[in-house]
């Protein structure tokens, strides 16, 4: 004769689990989490909100003096690396290997790199000293100007345009 005894521990445990699961199925949680306390991970809940907005840079006007600290080694620059070509300032922090302090083109960090881009040279002579007016680039050949524009386009596609370079007394 089959024995059906609920008093055995195994049966009791199974029965309790069964009742608990059935209760969860029949009476599901019916209220949304409060709006202030929304989960911040998608695994924690369906109506979740990310904790913060994606990072956005502000388009700023830089002068050669204010741009200089963004060379990746000065602490005031916050680790960002910027360089300027044809008056457009690019954020090249993603290319730290090239433009960082130890990079091949590290000279350009925090400076106006237009002449260097045009003449395809990374020498220090290509850089204009900080207190002088911006390089007018009038003595470049057409080919060099084309080269510089090509670099400008390359940078526009690869890095973020985050500002304009203006004269030291313009701000």
């Amino acid at each position: 004769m089959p024995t059906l005894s609920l008093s055995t521990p195994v049966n009791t445990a199974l029965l309790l689990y069964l009742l608990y699961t059935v209760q969860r199925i029949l009476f599901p949680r019916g209220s949304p989490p409060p709006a202030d306390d929304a989960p911040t991970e998608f695994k924690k809940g369906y109506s979740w909100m990310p904790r913060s907005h994606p990072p956005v840079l502000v388009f700023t006007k830089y002068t050669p003096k204010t741009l200089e600290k963004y060379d990746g080694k000065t602490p005031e620059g916050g680790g960002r690396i910027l360089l300027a070509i044809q008056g457009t300032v690019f954020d090249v922090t993603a290319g730290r290997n090239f433009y960082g302090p130890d990079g091949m083109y590290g000279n350009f960090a925090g400076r106006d790199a237009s002449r260097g881009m045009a003449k395809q040279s990374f020498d220090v002579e290509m850089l204009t000293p900080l207190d002088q007016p911006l390089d007018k680039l009038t003595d470049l050949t057409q080919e060099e100007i084309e080269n510089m524009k090509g670099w400008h386009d390359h940078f526009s596609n690869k890095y973020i345009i985050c500002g304009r370079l203006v004269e030291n007394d313009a701000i």
Partner: protein
Amino acid sequence: MRACCERDLFSTGEASDRMEDGEEVGGTRTGRVVAEICEDRGRGQTGRANQGAQKTATAGTGARIRGKEAGAPRRRRVMSLNSKLRLQAAGFTHASASAMALSDYLVTDDLTILLGLITASVFLLYNLYKPQSLVHPILLGRQSDVGRVRNPGESAVHRNYGTGLMGRFPLRPTREVQTLLDLVKPEYDAPRTLWSTKITNPQLRERAAAFGTGLLRAGLTHDSNVLLLLNDSIEFLITDIALASHSIPSFTLTSPSLLSSVLDNHPPTAIVIDAGFLPNVLELIYDTNELSHHVVIVVGEPDSKALEQAAEQIKLVRWSDIEEEGKRGEKLTSPTPDPNDVFTVSFYEDHNGQLQGAQLSHQNLTAGVTTLRGLLPLSNPLTALDTIVSAYSLSTSFGRAIAYTALYEGTSFATTNSTRLYKNDDVVVPPGLPDLFSTKSLPLPSPTIVFAKPEHLNALTASIISEAEKSLAFSFAWRHKMAGVLDGYITNQSLWDRLVFDGARTKVLGDSASTIRGIVVSGGTLDDHALTPTRIALSIPFVHAHTHPLVTAPRTPDAALAHVGPPTINIEVKLVGVDDAALEKGADPVGHVHVRGPIVGRLLAVSDDAEDGADAAGEEPWVPIGHNARVQTNGSFKVWPVGK
């Protein structure tokens, strides 16, 4: 066990060696007892082992007594033997007792098997049978693509994540659709009902061509402006298509109150008007004294009094006569318009109270159709079997886009009564349930997709829920539906729908309860709390969008204030006038909404707060739409009109 017995015997033997003869007897007896114990142990009978242990004890006592006489060392050895035996026997008892207890706990019987099976199946049911959410939650965290740079005082540019910042805006549904006429596909010739006319695409094109020819014969040219004061009907569509294909600009008004200012500022060459509205317009025309310039084309039969009155002063023609005229003889054609040509201007009143005109080009409309097609979930796109009912007048940009989407997809189409702008009585049909059902009088198949206003939606939700509350299982069903919505899953095929909600929906909606499969709401503000009850009551894909008279498609669709989701695929949005300091700290950007994209028409009059200088860059200028918005961290927008 054998070994310990032998050892005991051996030690017994040892002990007995040291004893005197008298004791030897006892030793032997001990040995015999030990042998018995070993036998018992071998057989595994606990009871007898206990007895054996007792015997050992007595025997041991006996031996002890004799051992006492023999001397201390012997006694000790005998005692150690006895205690050894006793301990071993006791240990055996203990072990077997706990073994008995454990197997007692684990005793399984048939109920266990039964319960085990039920529990396993319930466990699987609970964990694996949960319905999947319609949209994976990871997608909800990044709904709009945000630019990496922003100008000071503005937010970054937001686009739909599907389009992306680098993507180009889709301008047309397919490459061949360049102008408005192309939206009426000639190769598609299944009949469908537009308002109360059953017509196919080729027939529609025929009628439009005939009407266009008639218009040209009546004297209209490219330089004419035609003011359309028509209620939504197939004549409106035919007129619109005819004018567009001959590049004759048309004007429409979003509200009849704008009529006088438009007649003053932008006098049209011809007016196409509904017969019922004719007397009102005649008065205005007499006022402005521009009578000789006006040709008035009347749809329907004007009453005789107006006819007499008008015939003296202006050239009055019947719409049907023009079409007849056009059918006879050769069809006149014009060069194909360029998609960027403006074919219509929709006049509306902007947030500053100014009269504003939205210049719409063919491209705006085709881009608008593209956007609207993508509004509903991809798994159930619009097909020719659908019927679209719209609460937006064809005189508005959005209404026009909906109508042309319906035409393009080959669905049946009608608009509700509240879209009737031009009537001679002052009866205002409020948007509500009766209005929503006004299309039932038309010979139209049951509506499947509805473009409604928030008032319609609120009335619908309230009545469905009040009907459903009469059912017994309502609170239970609501709870389950709510749990589904919280997990991102809605369906109108579930058990709760069959039990509770289908009945309520049928009572409220009638036949369309079973056919309606999507609803798009825009044109006003919707409360956040209203969203979930709506989703539960209707259980169909529901899109909350934001539209603007200048824009041919919703600005921001969706799955306090309800959010409207990210920008649609065809538009980019930025907020102007944001607080930079708060933004740097991570707060939500809040500011005025500026939009740009192929669905944004061009403004006729320069608005006060429009941006200038953008034309210099060769790009389209950003257009302020008079609303403020806030962007949430997941890229969705909450929009409200300025001034609230």
